[in-house]
């Protein structure tokens, strides 16, 4: 009883003091990367194990993350991603399996993040006083880079997600975020203005003081997980409702209170995208960061890791993500100048990739063709058609965890080519089969004169 009284007194002495001087000094937007590890293209991914807890490293945080993941199984694991029209998505860089997260981290005097949960903050002086955000105050619907426009959804509390991205799309966003933070700070500032200013509303709960091995903070997050709460906005609303009606916890009374904090006039919006970009670059590989230690500066997880995994640790051990050419290209190329050339060519090429064994093996079917723009010319105007079928395996070596690996590929190849010369006077058909071997280097490192040489 004595202990409870002390706890209550602490709460009474701290909470009002905080409420009198609520100040949001800024908003930090931390970009992060998540990778769907199952089969994209619709349907449940529950059996594939879509959720991992990549960059969450401490024991206590892992405990919470595990509980959260278990609680959301069967709901958060459904994938709405579209299947790539020309590549088997799970193992290819152009599969729509990547997501970029914009994690909103309010900078509030006297508060710090609570147990890696984006929707909760703890009082720095009295950590048992936890402030649960009632909603995400920033709403964005789209983000436009130089390349294209991306849809943004408020998937989890304080997390804006850009989903169904190819590796190139994710890289596009992160690269531009690094070079032009206004890409996101501008729209966020607009959203804040539209909402009448940045304001957070909380339900403040003062938990019992830890004692004798009892961890009320862990108990609370575990109980929330047991009740099926997760960080989707609708479910989070139920969580907040539960918290606001809570009268006791761990055998001691609690008194939830509503607190609203508004931003100061000089609150700054900052962006951090470099660690996520580094992780994305390293994700193209089988060893190193894939399933291992996230690269330097890796993000620290999101909402306990629900349906996402920050950093390169999101990719299962042993997976190889394949980088391939565009699946379908049609090019109209008029000739400008040259020798033995006609007015130009019309070209097409297409390929389909069938990876298996987590990308360690693959089959590739490709076709290509070329036709002259003015076939009546007497000079060298050629019509061509070619097809190739490769059956091969990959082996990666990744000495530097922050870059993509050196890849060795070997296998069998068969080709068929048919070509016709000017006026149909000469034709040739060739069928061939044989062995094939290749070595691929991801980039030239270091190479400071280019923004990045990673494949897109």
């Amino acid at each position, binding site marked *: 009883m004595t202990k409870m009284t002390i706890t209550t007194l602490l709460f009474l002495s701290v909470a009002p003091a905080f409420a009198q001087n609520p100040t949001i000094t800024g908003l930090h937007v931390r970009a992060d990367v998540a990778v769907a590890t199952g089969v994209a293209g619709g349907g449940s991914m529950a059996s594939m194990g879509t959720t991992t807890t990549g960059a969450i490293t401490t024991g206590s945080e892992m405990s919470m993350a595990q509980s959260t993941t278990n609680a959301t199984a069967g709901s958060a694991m459904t994938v709405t991603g579209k299947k790539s029209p020309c590549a088997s998505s799970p193992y290819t860089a152009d599969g729509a399996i990547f997501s970029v997260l914009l994690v909103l981290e309010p900078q509030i005097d006297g508060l710090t993040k609570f147990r890696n949960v984006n929707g909760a903050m703890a009082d720095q002086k009295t950590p048992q006083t936890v402030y649960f955000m009632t909603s995400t105050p920033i709403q964005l619907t789209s983000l436009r880079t130089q390349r294209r426009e991306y849809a943004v959804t408020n998937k989890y509390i304080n997390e804006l997600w850009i989903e169904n991205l190819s590796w190139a799309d994710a890289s596009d966003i992160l690269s531009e975020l690094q070079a032009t933070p206004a890409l996101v700070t501008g729209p966020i500032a607009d959203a804040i203005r539209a909402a009448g200013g940045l304001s957070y509303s909380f339900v403040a709960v003062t938990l019992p003081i830890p004692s004798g091995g009892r961890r009320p903070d862990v108990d609370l997050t575990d109980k929330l997980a047991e009740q099926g709460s997760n960080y989707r906005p609708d479910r989070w609303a139920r969580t907040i409702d539960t918290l606001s009606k809570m009268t006791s916890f761990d055998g001691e009374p609690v008194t939830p209170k509503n607190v609203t904090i508004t931003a100061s006039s000089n609150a700054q919006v900052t962006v951090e995208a470099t660690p996520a970009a580094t992780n994305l670059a390293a994700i193209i590989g089988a060893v190193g960061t894939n399933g291992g230690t996230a690269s330097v500066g890796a993000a620290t997880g999101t909402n306990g890791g629900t349906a996402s995994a920050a950093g390169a640790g999101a990719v299962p051990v042993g997976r190889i993500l394949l980088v391939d050419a565009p699946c379908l290209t*049609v090019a109209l190329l*008029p000739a400008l100048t040259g020798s033995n050339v006609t007015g130009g060519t019309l070209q097409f090429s297409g390929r389909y990739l069938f990876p298996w064994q987590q990308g360690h093996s693959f089959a590739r079917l490709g076709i290509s063709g070329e036709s002259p723009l003015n076939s009546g010319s007497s000079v060298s105007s050629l019509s061509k058609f070619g097809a190739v079928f490769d059956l091969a395996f990959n082996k990666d070596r990744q000495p530097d965890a922050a870059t993509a690996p050196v890849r060795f590929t070997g296998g069998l190849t068969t080709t068929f080519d048919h070509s016709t010369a000017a006026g149909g006077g000469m034709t040739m058909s060739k069928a061939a089969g044989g062995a094939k071997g290749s070595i691929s280097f991801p980039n030239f490192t270091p190479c400071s004169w280019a923004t990045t040489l990673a494949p897109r």
Partner: protein
Amino acid sequence: MSGTTGTGSSGSMNGTTGSTSQFEGNAKFNAKFRWTELFNSSIDARYLASHDRIYGGRKTNYLINVDLLKFIVKEPFEFAATWRCGRPEPDYKKSCAFFAGVSLTSNQ
């Protein structure tokens, strides 16, 4: 991304001069350079060799395609300025030229 590929193949050739079979080896070199978020270049080169004179009376042949500059105008349309040089089959006449135009690329 840069890399080299070597293939060894056996097969048959059919054409106006009759059918035959030869062994052929070829090496490829591909490299792509992304200078900025927008601009990129690439090299695609092939070198072919055979014991027999199957390349218009020669034992070797080459084909080089250099995309000097490519950038996405508006997805999926991409501008390409290309230089191509080599002895394309079936007549194996040397041809070198600059091309410039638009390609339509899906899901790159």
